[in-house]
């Protein structure tokens, strides 16, 4: 490795050593060997999970093996889908955090456009969405036709929701053709807007919020909020571990602690249980960082994890930064 990483130079290639699935680090040579072992792309995916994480290599898998990869969210036989189920290959269910409160209103969008290369292709379909409250109880379900090129939208400010409302929108599309299929949610404060998207119906078992927080940060203009949601039909416990960036225990089991005494590990944990399809809105600055910084010297980072689960069982996390003075919100998913 040099100090100056090479930048890209164009070459047309189908090289055996090139990585195809970055998530599971599989080269084309690896995949061809696996394919020989398992006999089909579907069985290879079942065994290796290739193409099942971010989905970015699905086109390449199809290109190289001539078979349709298993859909990330095509879990037709999985009973952990909740009230909104995916019943046909190619259909999708997408679940994203949604809020309606004095802090934020939410607007969800999904495009039903067709890529230009496909010409005048018909992508008309019926879309269905369900709102779940923080306890995972469905409080609203609607179906509506969506024409080719139409943009689906849903605005919490236009609905009579119990406020404050923190929950999840599950959006199912029922299309038999190529087309756009993601759900963005924009959170609006009245002064500013921030937006990101769902992670289909999956979660992330183990992530770190890469925002270093110390007393200066905590006393500064930004607050950190977390929205954690359980897109699955079984309850999940989430562990929030705050650890010192300098020498804190990130991954090993923590030694028992004594209340009020700084932990030897340079880390401490908080736990929450999410009911099936449930959601939790957490003012992390107040609930996690403030008590942690009384015992631990900052800066601290935050690991969010659920032991022993994969993406089809794990909760998902959105993080929000609120600049109080400017009333500006920023967000993204982890």
């Amino acid at each position, binding site marked *: *490795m040099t*100090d*100056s*990483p*090479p*930048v*890209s*130079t164009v*070459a047309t*290639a189908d090289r055996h*050593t090139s*990585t195809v699935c*970055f*998530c*599971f*680090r599989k080269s084309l040579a690896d995949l061809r060997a696996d394919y020989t072992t398992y006999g089909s792309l579907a069985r290879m995916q079942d065994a*290796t999970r290739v193409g099942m994480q*971010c989905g*970015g290599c699905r*086109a*390449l898998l*199809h290109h190289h093996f001539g078979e349709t990869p298993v859909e990330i969210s095509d879990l037709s036989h999985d009973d952990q889908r909740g009230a909104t189920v995916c019943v046909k*290959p*190619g259909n*999708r269910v997408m679940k994203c955090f949604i809020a309606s409160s004095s802090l934020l209103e939410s*607007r969800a*969008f999904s*495009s039903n*456009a067709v*890529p*230009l*290369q496909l010409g005048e292709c018909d992508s008309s379909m019926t879309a269905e969405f369900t709102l779940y409250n923080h306890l995972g109880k469905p409080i609203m379900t609607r179906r509506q036709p969506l024409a080719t*090129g*139409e*943009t689906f*939208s849903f605005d919490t400010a236009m609905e009579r929701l119990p406020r404050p409302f923190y929950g999840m929108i599950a959006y199912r599309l029922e299309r038999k053709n190529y087309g*756009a299929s993601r759900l963005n949610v*924009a959170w*609006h404060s009245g*002064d*500013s*807007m*921030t937006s*990101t998207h769902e992670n289909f119906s999956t979660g992330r078992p*183990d*992530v770190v919020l*890469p*925002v270093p927080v110390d007393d200066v940060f905590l006393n*500064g203009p*930004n607050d950190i909020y977390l929205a954690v949601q359980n897109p699955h039909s079984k309850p999940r416990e989430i562990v929030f571990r705050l650890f010192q960036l300098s020498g804190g225990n*990130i*991954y090993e089991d923590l030694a028992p602690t004594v209340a009020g005494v700084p932990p030897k590990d340079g880390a401490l944990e908080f736990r929450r249980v999410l009911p099936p399809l449930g959601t939790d809105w957490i003012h992390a600055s107040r609930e996690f960082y403030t008590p942690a910084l009384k015992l631990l010297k900052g800066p601290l*980072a935050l690991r969010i994890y659920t032991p022993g689960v994969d993406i089809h069982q794990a909760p998902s996390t959105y*993080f929000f930064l609120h600049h109080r003075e*400017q009333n*500006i*919100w*920023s*967000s*993204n998913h982890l």
Partner: protein
Amino acid sequence: MTDETAPSARIHYGCLIPSVADYFTQLMIFPGSNARKPWGLHGAFTLGGTVFTKGNPETVIATRSCTEEEHLKLDFETPLKALGKDASGFGVLALDSAGGIPVEIYLSHIHRKTGVYFAYPALMFMGDLLYPHAHIERLENSMFWPGFPAWEDTEFKLVMMNPFDLPMAAEITLWNNREGKHHVGVRRVSPRECLWVSMDEIMPAAWQVQNDPACSLGVTAQFKLLAYMVMINRRTGIITSADHLHPYQLF
């Protein structure tokens, strides 16, 4: 250039570098969070990068290394400040890793005057390898963005990055529920440049008057497209969010 002798586990990522005068850039990774089955349990990670402005490599972000038990932090501030001038463009990060553990990379940019903070994931791409069949026939070159809400207080800007040595052309299309499809036309992105396109500029005036958020955008380029939608608060001019465009559903 990546060739047969280079390690197969080199991965490239594209990221934004907003005005150095206005924003502080921060990057930390914790690769151990993915150190489990079916991935590897033990790994080594080396990350560095190059910042491009106006098509030229402006400065190098020094590489740092860690294992799965540690974390890694890149220093953007020292080399960017050493330029002695304002700079903005995009970054190409190169991650070399051993051990089969996937890594997610998030960047944060902090507005220097106010402390407003936005964070987003870097966009993975395959370095110098182009797969023409996949990029074109399988639509890896086409992406979309649904919805333009809060138009009155937020300006949306499409940012297209071209990390390749070839010029890129991208065709932009807009859809509106009432007005139908609108072809914006082709925008060119020079080699190793990024292009910011404001929706204020390309959205038909009548659509803006309607202030209808139910619009979507599509972009089609010749090859792998790295693109973000950046949201800017009109009152302050501060970036509030950046998120990537989406690929289409293929199957």
